[in-house]
């Protein structure tokens, strides 16, 4: 248990992860013993009904909340015992977050929002600006750089949030229902960008309750009542490289019934 059999391949590894919430007199287990491994460059979707603990799992894996029990290994190092501040420093370089409600800072411009993580990580303003320009160009929102986030559509806001999450080229991108608040056109847009980031080698762990969205991933983990009910690789998406995406999604949909 203490030994890591494959220290290099697994970017993220959770062992017997438990998250308990104290509520009233008793405690509720939101995550009840999850074992999960995510390899470098993988795109994993976590699915499950509401209340299955998928968001909690994501937050615990990103260190936003401490785990009650169990181990978290990030890049071959134990991370579950870290202090909140040590987690914060770890997140700067290695973990990017995208949220359902975008969570852009309304008091800053789009450009400042995207530059913030780099500045937090200690980049010079020049470096941060250069990286921001690259990202905004890549995600097609350069024109909105100086606008406040409130002037942007939901899809654009999520693109900015994605740019922000990728600003420090994190080892792991954690996406919590990134399309949960978007219409279908914007959903496709954001998914296309996620896909592109993944194609560029970005490791992504995404929580969603939408099977179509999950179908873009290499692997789908089904969570039920805080435990993993199913962990399936979407084989065709990987093997049939030349095949059109629609077919790949179709295969997955068939597979999951």
């Amino acid at each position: 248990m203490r030994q890591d059999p494959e220290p290099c391949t697994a970017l993220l590894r959770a062992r017997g992860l438990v998250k308990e919430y104290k509520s009233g007199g008793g405690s509720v287990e939101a995550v009840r013993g999850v074992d999960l491994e995510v390899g470098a460059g993988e795109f994993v979707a976590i699915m499950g009904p509401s209340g299955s603990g998928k968001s909690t799992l994501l937050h615990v894996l990103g260190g936003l909340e401490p785990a009650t029990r169990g181990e978290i290994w990030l890049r071959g190092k134990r991370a579950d015992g870290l202090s909140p501040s040590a987690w914060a420093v770890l997140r700067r370089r290695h973990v990017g977050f995208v949220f359902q409600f975008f969570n852009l800072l309304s008091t800053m411009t789009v450009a400042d929002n995207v530059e913030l993580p780099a500045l937090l990580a200690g980049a010079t303003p020049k470096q941060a600006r250069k990286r921001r320009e690259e990202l905004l160009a890549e995600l097609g929102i350069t024109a909105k750089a100086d606008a406040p986030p409130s002037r942007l559509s939901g899809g654009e806001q999520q693109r900015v949030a994605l740019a922000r999450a990728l600003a420090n080229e994190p080892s792991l991108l954690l996406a919590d229902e990134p399309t949960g608040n978007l219409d279908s056109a914007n959903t496709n847009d954001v998914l296309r960008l996620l896909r592109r980031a993944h194609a560029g080698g970005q490791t992504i762990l995404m929580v969603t309750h939408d099977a179509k969205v999950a179908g873009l991933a290499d692997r789908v983990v089904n969570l039920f009542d805080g435990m993993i009910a199913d962990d399936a690789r979407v084989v065709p998406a990987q093997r049939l490289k030349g095949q059109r995406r629609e077919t790949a999604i179709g295969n997955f949909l068939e597979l999951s019934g």
Partner: protein
Amino acid sequence: MTTVPPVPAAARLRPADLAGLASIGLRTRRLRAALSALGIALGVAAIVAVLGLAASSQAALLNEIQALGTNLLTVGNGQTFGGATAELPPAAPGMIARLPGVTAVQDTGAVGGINVYKSPLVPPVETNGLSVDAATLGLPAVAGTSVAQGGYLNAATARAPAAVLGATAARLLGFDRIRPGTRIWLSGGSFGGQWFYLSGILRPDTYAPELDAAVLVGFPAAQRYLGFDGHPSQVYVRTASDPAVTARVDGLLAAQANPENPGQVTVSQPSAALTAQADAKGALDTLFLGLGAVALLVGAIGVANIMVISVLERRQEIGLRRALGATRGQVRGQFLAEAVLLSLAGGACGVAAGATATAAYARAHGEAVVIPPDAWGGGLAAAVVIGALAGLLPAIRAARLSPTRALWSI
């Protein structure tokens, strides 16, 4: 996996970044920030103005003393052992003039029992509290005053019924200029009264305020018309301008003026007395400083209040910053810096307002503008300390906020 470019893993915010970060929070809530900084501004302004006004008027007084010279000594009547007024010997001025280091000696003699009226028709009780003094001919320059209107007594007018008014005396009698033939009525118990023609009016005398309320006549005229006994009551002595000489003369004056009874002579140095008075004046300002402190306290509560609200309002931002990798210390620093910046801005405005008030007042009174560094430095320092204290609790609360709870509470 993408290659991670080498980025310096600095875990701390530079002060400039912190200031920029803090100013964003304030700039987006301008009105609220301005209102809460106002309390601090008022407190600091009150303190700076009180200290500035005191320093300015003190500086003005010290400048005047410097201009008038610190080498004036006065010798006055003392008291006898029984408590009666001990008169100086008539020879005192001449004796004093013989002391080495003394450059000029002038004297006045109080003419008792004589009152001054504008005309004989004025009821005798309306004396205005003016005194009549016999004076020597070089008095104004030595006593630190000069003639504002007309001319001073001369060898001729000193023998004639002619008078020179001190500044206050002229005001109380209703004269602001000298016209030919202007006269005043001097009368007193034992003799019927005598018209005296006005010769001149003196400027206010900082060193010898007793001259302001005096009507000065020549020694011979006083003896001839008013029954004056010829005893000097106040001797004005100028020494060489070296303070050591002044001090030495000071020590010798009593014995020289009245060798028989040196203890029955009052010797003083008006400049020293005024300097001490200027220093003591500051004590009166304690009340206003206290009021300023109360305003500062209220301002501090305002800042604390605004920061508590700010933390509540910006939970989402706090959560997000934590998620992006801001440490608790950085969140704490951000809100603390915001509070400090807020009250520092208030303090700076207060210093400016206090300095402006001081300048306006000092200019209006023809004084030099002096803002002591203690006042503005202390005002700014107080603002920073208050900001830090007021922001501490909200900042700690912000840092304690769990990132997920903050993010979910949109």
